[in-house]
C-alpha cells in the first residue's frame, strides 16, 4: 500500500485516509511522496523536537546550483527565512522577530482589523445571489492586514496579494514546462517586491513609526536585523501569514455551514468565538502537512529513518487522533482543553499565531453575525495539494 495525499479522493476527504494510516501504519513510507507520513499526535509531537529532523532545506538546494540563475537571488531571499533555518541561525532570527509579535502589539490591531473586515463585508453584502467569500473577503483580508502592519501606504496594498501568490509559486516549487513561463513572471514580480521592501526599510530606518517593520528593527543586545534580513522577513510574513489565514477563515466558515447546530450555538453565544476558533483550527485547519528533512539516522515507532529522506508531519491527522482528542471527528466549539497543533509546536511554532487567531475570530464573528441567512450555494472543491487544506472558492448566498 502506498498513500498519495494529493489524489483527488484524498484531497476531498483526507480524514478518512488519515484514520486508516493512524490505525494501520502510523509511520508510513509513501512511494508517491517519497517521504514518511507521520500521522499520530504523539509521534508528530515528538518529531518537532527530534534533532534528526531539519527545517534547513533551501540552502542545500542553493549550494548545489553551479550557475547563478534568475532564480538564485530570489532563492537567496527565501534561504534567509527563519522557517527554513535550524538553530543557531533560527534562534537568532526568532529572537529578533519576537518583539514585533508581542501580545500588546497584536491586541491593538483589533479595531483596525474589524474595520477592514467590515469594509470587505459591506461590499459583499451589496452583491446579490451567489458570491465567492474567498475572493471577496478571506483572500484580501490577510494581505491588507500585513501591508497595514508593515506600514505600507494603502495604495500599494493590492501588490501584496500578487507578491504573495508569486511567493507561493516559487517557494512551493512547480516544475513542468507549462509552468515555466508563470515561474519566470513570478521571479520578475519578486524582484520588484525585493526592491519595494528595500525602499520601505530605507524610509523606516530614517523615521521609525509604531508599525511592525519599525519593531523588527529593534536591537537584541548588540545584534540587529540587516536590511536584507528585514526584507526577507517582510516577504516571509506575507508568505506565511496570507494563504494560511485565508484558508483558516474559509475552512472555519465551511465547517460551521456543515454543522448548523454549532453555527446556532455560536450565534447564540458570540463570546464562544475564542474556543470556537481553536476548535475550527483543530477540526479543519489550513495546514495538512509540514515538511522536515532527515539529517541523521533516527527511529520512529520502530521504523528506521535515514539521512536524505523526508518526513511529512501530518498536522491535520494529529489533530484528529482519538488517542488525544475525545470524539475527534465531532466539531465541538466548546472543546476545552484543546491542545491542537494547527500552529505547529516547538521552536518553529507559528510566531503569527496571535495575529492569525485575531483575524480569524473577527472575520468569522462578523461573517456569522452580519449574514444571518448565510448558506452554501455550490459544493466546494478542495485543491489537490499536499501542504495546505484549501478550496478554490467558497460560493455562498447571504439572503
Amino acid at each position, binding site marked *: 500500500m502506498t498513500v498519495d495525499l494529493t489524489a483527488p479522493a484524498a484531497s476531498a476527504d483526507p480524514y478518512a485516509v488519515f484514520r486508516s494510516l493512524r490505525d494501520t501504519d502510523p509511520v508510513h513510507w509513501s512511494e508517491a511522496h517519497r517521504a514518511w507520513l507521520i500521522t499520530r499526535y504523539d509521534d508528530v509531537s515528538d518529531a*518537532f523536537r527530534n534533532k534528526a529532523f531539519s527545517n534547513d532545506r533551501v540552502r542545500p538546494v542553493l549550494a548545489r546550483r553551479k550557475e547563478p540563475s534568475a532564480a538564485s537571488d530570489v532563492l537567496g531571499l527565501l534561504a534567509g527565512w527563519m522557517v527554513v533555518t535550524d538553530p543557531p541561525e533560527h534562534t537568532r532570527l526568532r529572537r529578533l522577530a519576537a518583539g514585533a509579535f*508581542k501580545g500588546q502589539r497584536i491586541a491593538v490591531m483589533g479595531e483596525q482589523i474589524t474595520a477592514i473586515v467590515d469594509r470587505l463585508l459591506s461590499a459583499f453584502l451589496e452583491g446579490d445571489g451567489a458570491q465567492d467569500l474567498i475572493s471577496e473577503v478571506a483572500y484580501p483580508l490577510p494581505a491588507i492586514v500585513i501591508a497595514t502592519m508593515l506600514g505600507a501606504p494603502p495604495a500599494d496594498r493590492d501588490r501584496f496579494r500578487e507578491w504573495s501568490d508569486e511567493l507561493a509559486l516559487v517557494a512551493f516549487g512547480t516544475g513542468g514546462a507549462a509552468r515555466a513561463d508563470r515561474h519566470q513572471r513570478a521571479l520578475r514580480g519578486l524582484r520588484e517586491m525585493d526592491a519595494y521592501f528595500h525602499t520601505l526599510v530605507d524610509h523606516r530606518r530614517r523615521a521609525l513609526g509604531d508599525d511592525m517593520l519599525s519593531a523588527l528593527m529593534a536591537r537584541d543586545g548588540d545584534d540587529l536585523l540587516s536590511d536584507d534580513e528585514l526584507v526577507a522577513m517582510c516577504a516571509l510574513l506575507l508568505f506565511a501569514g496570507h494563504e494560511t489565514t485565508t484558508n483558516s477563515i474559509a475552512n472555519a466558515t465551511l465547517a460551521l455551514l456543515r454543522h448548523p447546530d454549532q453555527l446556532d450555538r455560536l450565534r447564540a453565544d458570540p463570546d464562544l468565538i475564542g474556543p470556537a476558533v481553536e476548535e475550527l483550527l483543530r477540526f479543519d485547519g489550513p495546514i495538512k502537512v509540514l515538511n522536515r528533512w532527515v539529517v541523521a539516522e533516527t527511529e520512529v515507532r520502530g521504523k528506521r529513518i535515514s539521512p536524505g529522506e523526508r518526513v511529512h508531519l501530518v498536522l491535520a491527522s494529529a489533530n484528529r487522533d482519538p488517542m488525544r482528542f475525545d470524539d475527534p471527528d465531532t466539531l465541538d466549539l466548546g472543546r476545552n482543553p*484543546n491542545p491542537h497543533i494547527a500552529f505547529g*509546536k516547538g521552536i518553529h511554532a507559528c510566531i503569527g499565531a496571535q495575529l492569525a487567531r485575531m483575524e480569524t475570530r473577527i472575520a468569522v464573528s462578523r461573517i456569522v453575525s452580519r449574514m444571518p441567512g448565510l448558506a452554501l450555494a455550490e459544493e466546494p472543491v478542495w485543491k489537490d495539494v499536499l501542504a495546505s487544506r484549501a478550496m478554490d472558492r467558497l460560493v455562498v448566498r447571504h439572503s
Partner: protein
Amino acid sequence: MRIAVDNSLCEAHGQCGVVDYDLFPLDDDGFSAVGPSREVPAGEEATAELGVASCPARALRVLP
C-alpha cells in the same frame, strides 16, 4: 505578580512565547523556562495573563 509553569504539563506548544518571549522564555526545545516562580515586571500584568491563558496544555498559572 508571579507566574509559574508546571513542567510535567508543558508540551512545547510555544504559544506563551508568541505572546511575549521575555515574560515566557522557552528552552532550546521550545519548552517553557518560566520555572516555579517568575516575577512579572510592573505594568505587564495584562500581557502575563494573556500568555497564561494562551497555553493549550494549561501548564501555566498566575501564582496567588
